[in-house]
């Protein structure tokens, strides 16, 4: 049995409180009204050294106006709503910023839980012989989809009640003047959107709830009685079918709909790869942590080696999907698709390409060597890079659509990351402390204990 150390509790608590304070400051710092932004821009115009950045601002806004005008407007009658002043535009971006920061961090930690759950289901359905010793770790991490899912749903509700404007298609004024979004309202309307989100969250949590219960019941079963194991196997197989459909739709809803004019067919897979690799990385990090504290004496180097192989392989899989999406759109250069990357390359150049380098080159070079995959600090280093890289990945998926060129990684971004990180750590380790760390009823446990690569 693992007992939650008070050090960890305090650490998670500090993360949460510091993060919360930073996030709240992020909200306070965002401009209260249009006049404030106008003043701010005025100042920037007068300051000489700010000249360059102001020009960028204006270019970006002009571009935005032009594409809007071309895509959605033929008739002049609606012209006035798009004659939004530069200051108004920046004002909207700045008010969106703390909300988007919270959203990105909330989604990032939620997707780790979900990725681990998918990995767990795959291990169960594939009857993997190596991983049963890690099942309790996976059950612990995936438990975060309950609080994380509730947080996500609350965030979606907040947007649905028009408290913020991060989902542009939820704004009726915008939709009224936008024929492209109008054509999509059959899918992108608030009641259906929330109903889908609720259905997916309930489905995933239901599986997680059941599989944990089955796993604990299997521990208490008599020798040779594997009824609960078989039940878990069937549920896992069914869940995987459900998951791949719902995960796809979730990625359209929760991320792709930030850019309602844009679409990509492999987007669901791309988001999946991101959550899968972050999930596996988190399993490896938590396992290494618990092992270093002496709680997982039955986990050997070969288990870590296998996890590191997964981190390596799925990182490359993620890169493959990232590149496939990017290259197809770059190559054909169709205006309605390519704006997605134009904004990212122009306004987010360093984060956008830096994130690819972190997520591809680091795991590739650090984890290629077979010996390195058995050295814990190598795996931890690669793991931290992967997690930061995938946070940035989600960041550049969401931010360009909500805050555009007014982005910065500052108080609200770091703050909300720390805040949800604190909740995540506390909840995950709390769940891990609730059950023995060895799923002793699993029929593959013996093989897993002796697993050797």
């Amino acid at each position, binding site marked *: 049995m693992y007992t939650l150390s008070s050090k960890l509790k305090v650490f998670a608590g500090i993360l949460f409180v510091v993060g919360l304070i930073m996030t709240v400051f992020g909200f306070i710092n965002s401009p209260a009204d249009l006049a404030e932004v106008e003043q701010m821009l005025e100042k920037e115009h007068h300051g000489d050294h700010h000249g360059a950045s102001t020009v960028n601002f204006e270019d970006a806004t002009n571009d935005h106006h032009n594409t809007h005008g071309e895509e959605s407007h033929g008739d002049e009658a609606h012209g006035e709503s798009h004659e939004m002043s530069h200051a108004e535009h920046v004002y909207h971006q700045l008010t969106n910023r703390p909300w988007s920061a919270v959203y990105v961090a909330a989604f990032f930690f939620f997707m780790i839980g979900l990725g681990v759950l998918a990995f767990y289901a795959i291990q169960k359905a594939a009857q993997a012989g190596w991983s049963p010793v890690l099942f309790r770790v996976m059950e612990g991490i995936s438990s975060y989809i309950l609080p994380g899912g509730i947080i996500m749903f609350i965030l979606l509700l907040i947007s649905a009640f028009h408290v913020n404007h991060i989902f542009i298609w939820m704004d009726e004024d915008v939709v009224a003047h936008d024929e492209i979004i109008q054509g999509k309202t059959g899918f992108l309307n608030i009641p259906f959107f929330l109903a889908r989100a609720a259905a997916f969250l309930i489905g995933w949590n239901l599986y997680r709830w059941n599989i944990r219960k089955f796993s604990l019941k299997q521990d208490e079963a008599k020798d040779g009685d594997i009824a609960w194991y078989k039940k878990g196997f069937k549920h896992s197989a069914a869940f995987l079918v459900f998951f791949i459909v719902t995960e796809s739709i979730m990625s359209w809803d929760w991320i792709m709909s930030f850019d309602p004019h844009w679409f990509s067919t492999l987007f669901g897979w791309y988001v999946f790869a991101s959550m899968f690799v972050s999930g596996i990385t988190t399993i490896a990090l938590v396992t290494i942590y618990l092992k270093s504290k002496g709680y997982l004496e039955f986990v050997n180097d070969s288990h870590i080696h296998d996890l590191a192989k997964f981190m390596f392989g799925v990182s490359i899989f993620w890169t493959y999907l990232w590149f496939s999406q990017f290259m197809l759109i*770059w190559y054909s250069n169709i205006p309605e698709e390519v704006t997605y990357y134009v904004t990212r390359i122009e306004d987010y150049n360093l984060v956008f390409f830096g994130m690819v380098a972190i997520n591809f080159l680091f795991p590739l070079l650090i984890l290629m060597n077979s010996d390195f995959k058995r050295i814990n600090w190598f795996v931890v280093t690669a793991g931290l890079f992967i997690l930061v890289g995938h946070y940035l990945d989600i960041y550049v998926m969401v931010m360009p659509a909500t805050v555009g060129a007014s982005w910065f990684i500052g108080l609200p971004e770091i703050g909300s990351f720390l805040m949800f990180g604190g909740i995540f750590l506390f909840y995950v380790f709390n769940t891990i402390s609730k059950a023995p760390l060895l799923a002793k009823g699993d029929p593959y446990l013996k093989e897993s204990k002796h697993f050797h690569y």
Partner: protein
Amino acid sequence: MAASNKKLHVMYTDDDVLLNAVKQVREKHYHIEEVFTPFPVHGLEKAMGIADTRLAINAFLYGLVGLAVATTMMNYIMIEDWPQNIGGKPSFSYLENMPAFVPIMFELTVFFAAHLMVITFYLRSRLWPFKKAENPDVRTTDDHFLMEVDVKGDIEEMSRFMYDTGATEIKVIDKEEH
């Protein structure tokens, strides 16, 4: 030096027995020249104390060569030698048009890594089409295992030891006769 040319060919019919025998023979400090098996026996190279292969390191270096070949080739052809405007693709610098080159860079990396590694393997293992087979006993390709050990000391005593390790058959071979 005559004694060192004498070899014992010790046969086994089971891979577990073979593995144990290899360990015992090495503990006795007899020198195992070679082991012939019909299929890969897990842990045999470890039991025999054979050093790890460096084939993977070779493959990595070959991959880098492939990447360099692809990059120089396309940079020369598409950017330096004749930078045409083909369908509006930017041919001003390699970086600007790189996404279009990535599939070839990837494939050539894999091509070089794979093929050169295989050729390295053939060279190092001395395998080629008309090579004369070095098989000491045809049964070793079917269901027998053969351990070739240098004779050291008394042959009688050594064969008795080999029988105790579970050998089914022991032959003394004089290498010079071959």
